[in-house]
């Protein structure tokens, strides 16, 4: 690796946004191509461009990350547009995560969307949503945070309702949109209250103002922070704004569910980490660490118990995704200044591992939908004898999500819980560990159904969707390799997390 290529004085600073720009430009390119040749007769070309674009974004983010751009060694975070955007290690870490998930989902959608007339729209919506997420990771001002959140959300609403002839998809899109609009307004109102109390939208300024004490406006600021937290709870599908998630994930096309539950959730956390840690001091009229402790415990417990009672695999995954939001919330819940960087980094590493294993799991559901095998556990019975490779991959995802040792999910959960213990919140780790043990029950049920149960009746699987298969197998390989390769991941995550801790 070349030594430090991307210093602020070597390239124009705006190039630090290259990972986000790559996604945006690719999205525009797809639209452009589609307007030149509107009947979408070149599906492979469209998918190819989208894939190359997201891989380029991944490559750029990875390159910057390893070259130390925006990190301590190279002069610290790169601030752009009057400090409204910052590119630092954490932003790049999450941008790499979004780009990786986008690439996986784009590849997988190729087969899923066969003979669908609006492929270009699908890819470009997905790329724009990813752009919004990339900006969310870099937002340093509450205004940019709001705009980026909307940029990520609006295409997502459309994507959920993408199968417009499918009543379920449309209904899911509508629910997602309504709750999304509501929580956006809550979020915006919260921002305005914070602005009223502090007179600034830039996170560091907000921090200074709040820690200096806001005469007579402490209550206003506290309500504002509470409402901002509500906005994040929506985006990350945390209690009490989680109701949309099972509906939307279930009704949406499965690749979109994969995208939303992995990338979109991680984006919510990227923004939440930065806004709360950089913007709100711990004593700003409201103890937000306590707030997130309550949210984390309730979210993981509720998500896991609800997942255990589901009969449909996709719905089970949706609820388990709520449970995982609860785990990731530990990063904020166990945050306590000083030592907080480690547990925050562990949360980020968990989100990265989750990005692969959860995307893979939803893509397997996409495969099942492609084959029309049905939705319930029983419908999956004996699938392993017909699709052994994909079933092996699905078993890897399930065991990894449950946190069993041979897979990446074990380490990410372990470091998360250990980080919580180190920060003095052993009870939080205990609740997490109990939840994790419980989750094995419903995850192993999928494995049991796939491998141990006999298929009911005969059914033909039809053609093998190569791209979808490839994406699933790739995600599985990544999940397995994340165990031996966890060192760089957690070290990077913790080192970039430490830099945002004041």
């Amino acid at each position: 690796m070349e030594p430090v290529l991307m210093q602020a004085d070597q390239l124009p600073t705006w190039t630090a946004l290259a990972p986000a720009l790559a996604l945006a430009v690719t999205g525009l390119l797809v639209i452009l191509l589609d307007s030149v040749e509107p009947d979408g007769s070149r599906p492979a070309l469209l998918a190819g461009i989208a894939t190359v674009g997201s891989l380029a974004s991944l490559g750029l983010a990875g390159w910057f990350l390893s070259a130390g751009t925006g990190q301590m060694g190279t002069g610290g975070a790169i601030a752009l547009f009057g400090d409204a955007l910052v590119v630092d290690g954490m932003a790049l870490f999450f941008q790499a995560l979004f780009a990786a998930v986008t690439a996986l989902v784009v590849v997988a959608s190729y087969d899923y969307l066969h003979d669908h007339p609006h492929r270009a729209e699908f890819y470009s919506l997905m790329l724009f949503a990813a752009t919004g997420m990339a900006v969310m990771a870099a937002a340093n001002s509450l205004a940019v945070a709001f705009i980026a959140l909307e940029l990520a959300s609006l295409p997502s609403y459309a994507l959920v309702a993408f199968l417009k002839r499918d009543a379920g998809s449309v209904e899911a899109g509508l629910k997602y949109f309504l709750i999304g609009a509501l929580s956006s307004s809550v979020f915006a109102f919260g921002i305005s209250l914070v602005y009223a109390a502090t007179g600034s939208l830039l996170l560091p300024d907000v921090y200074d103002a709040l820690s200096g004490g806001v005469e007579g406006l402490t209550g206003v600021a506290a309500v504002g922070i509470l409402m901002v937290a509500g906005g994040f709870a929506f985006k990350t599908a945390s209690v009490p704004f989680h109701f949309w998630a099972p509906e939307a994930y279930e009704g949406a096309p499965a690749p979109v569910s994969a995208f939303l539950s992995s990338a979109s959730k991680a984006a919510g956390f990227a923004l939440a980490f930065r806004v709360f840690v950089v913007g709100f001091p711990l004593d700003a009229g409201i103890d937000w660490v306590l707030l997130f402790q309550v949210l984390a415990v309730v979210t993981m417990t509720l998500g896991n118990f609800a997942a255990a009672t589901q009969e449909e695999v996709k719905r089970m995954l949706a609820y388990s995704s709520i449970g995982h939001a609860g785990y990731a919330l530990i990063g904020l819940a166990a945050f306590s200044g000083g030592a907080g960087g480690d547990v925050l980094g562990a949360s980020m590493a968990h989100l990265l591992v989750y990005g692969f294993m959860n995307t893979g799991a939803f893509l397997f559901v996409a495969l099942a939908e492609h084959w029309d095998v049905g939705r319930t556990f029983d419908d999956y019975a004996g699938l392993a004898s017909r699709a052994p490779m994909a079933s092996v991959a699905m078993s890897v995802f399930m065991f990894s999500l449950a946190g069993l040792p041979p897979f990446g999910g074990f380490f990410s959960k372990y470091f998360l819980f250990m980080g919580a213990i180190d920060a003095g919140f052993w009870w939080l780790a205990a609740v997490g560990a109990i939840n994790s043990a419980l989750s094995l029950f419903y995850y192993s049920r999928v494995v049991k159904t796939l491998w141990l149960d006999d298929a009911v009746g005969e059914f033909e699987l039809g053609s093998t969707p190569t791209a979808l298969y490839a994406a699933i197998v790739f995600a599985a390989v990544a999940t397995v390799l994340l165990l031996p390769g966890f060192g760089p991941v957690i070290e990077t995550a913790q080192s970039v997390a430490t830099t945002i801790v004041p």
Partner: protein
Amino acid sequence: MIIEALIGVTFLAALVVMLAPDEYAGKLAFALSLLPVVGSLYMWAGFDAGGNALMAGSIAYETQLDWLTVAGYELQWFVGVDGISLPLVVLSTVLSSLAIVSAWTPIDTRQSQFYGLMLFMEANLLGVFTALDFFLWFVFWEAVLVPMYFLIGVWGGPRRKYAAIKFFVYTNIASLVMFIGFMALVFNLPISSFGLPEITQSLQAGELSGSVGLDPAALKLAAFAAMFAGFAVKVPVVPFHTWLPDAHVEAPTPVSVMLAGVLLKMGTYALLRFNFTMLPDVATRPLVATVIAAVAVVSVIYGAMLALAQQDLKRIVAYSSVSSMGYVILGLIAYTGLGIGGATFQMVAHGLISGLMFMAVGVIYNVTHTRMVGDMSGMADRMPITVGILVAGAFGYMGLPLMAGFAAEYFIFQGAFASTVIPSAPLFTAAAMFGIVIVAGYLLFAMQRTLFGEFSLETDYEVRRARFHDVAPLAVLLLCTIALGVAPDIFFEMITDAIEPVVAVVGGGA
């Protein structure tokens, strides 16, 4: 690097076999499984460790590489063997190869997957017995469950799903309990590593500090209890044994062989390494020692009585494992050279003999399609060689001199009798020795009714003699059993060498 090569080759073999066509899978798996056998024998030939790996002894074939550092803790790729682990490594490789051969007849569906999983399990077992970093060890430890779950669940008997899930849930929860207990120890030690030697030495230097309102002694006791409970499920000891007969009866023969032969030893091996080596001061408290000795004796007697009550040959052998593992626990808690040494020796001996018994029952089942004692008699007429080996194995189980079982049980009883750790040790020993009588009872009773007398069989299948490759692994196991019985020093010397430091800590005698 030989250990890495051993584990790596086995993983690779698993992958190759998984991708091979079904017709060749069995033969290919056997051929490839000979590589780790040769490797482990080579390790044995060049073995030069001394003392206990966890207690500043020298470690053979050691590799120690940094893996990753988190929150101040260093995780390492740290493997090596001493006199306790090497016999179990050899046992794992040899028994895996033989189990693969014994699968040729009964396994007729999805063969490449079956043999691939067997090799995958073997690789992880090798990891369990060689890893010296807690994390590495735990990864291997848990990874053994996954192939076992599928091996029972896919290829097992009629109630295979129930048995597989019960096995998986039981042992996984046990692992979690154990994991929490161990972590409670490590977090309160002034070290930054998960290396087992470092943890052991730090614990014995008395560097443990209290936590969450517990003083060091109470914390140790709590951690000991959590780890003991976790490992007790794996062993298994009464009352944590209920998963075992289900898993055994439903598992196909080769899987039962691995389960009884090696997997149960993971539990006793871990007990020896973690509970009895790291926390001897807890284990030797009179009350704790009494409880453990009582659990051991109850396992011996109750397991044997359960075996006595069974009608299914496989169930008889399965329950007899509970009983034999009780002996191991008794030997461990004795804290004498012969006691712990005998327990370790019994791990190997029982691995061989129970493997032999399961295989022999499997061979008979292949022919008769029944395992019920009441359904057959006079099998000796039709399958003289198989029955001969089965009888020899049963005698080994009963502790006939010049067989491995005798040597092991003798050492254990001698060691337990002289124990200064167990209060009224002779009483416990005498009670446990009574188990031998019951063992002899149920084995002779079952053999009398099934093997001898006039031939009759209630089945529609044609009874034919077993094929060569069915009997050959039995013969190999019998030879090994006799070899270990005639010359226990093959392993016993290196075991004693590694046991001595453990015993010395509590001042126990030979």
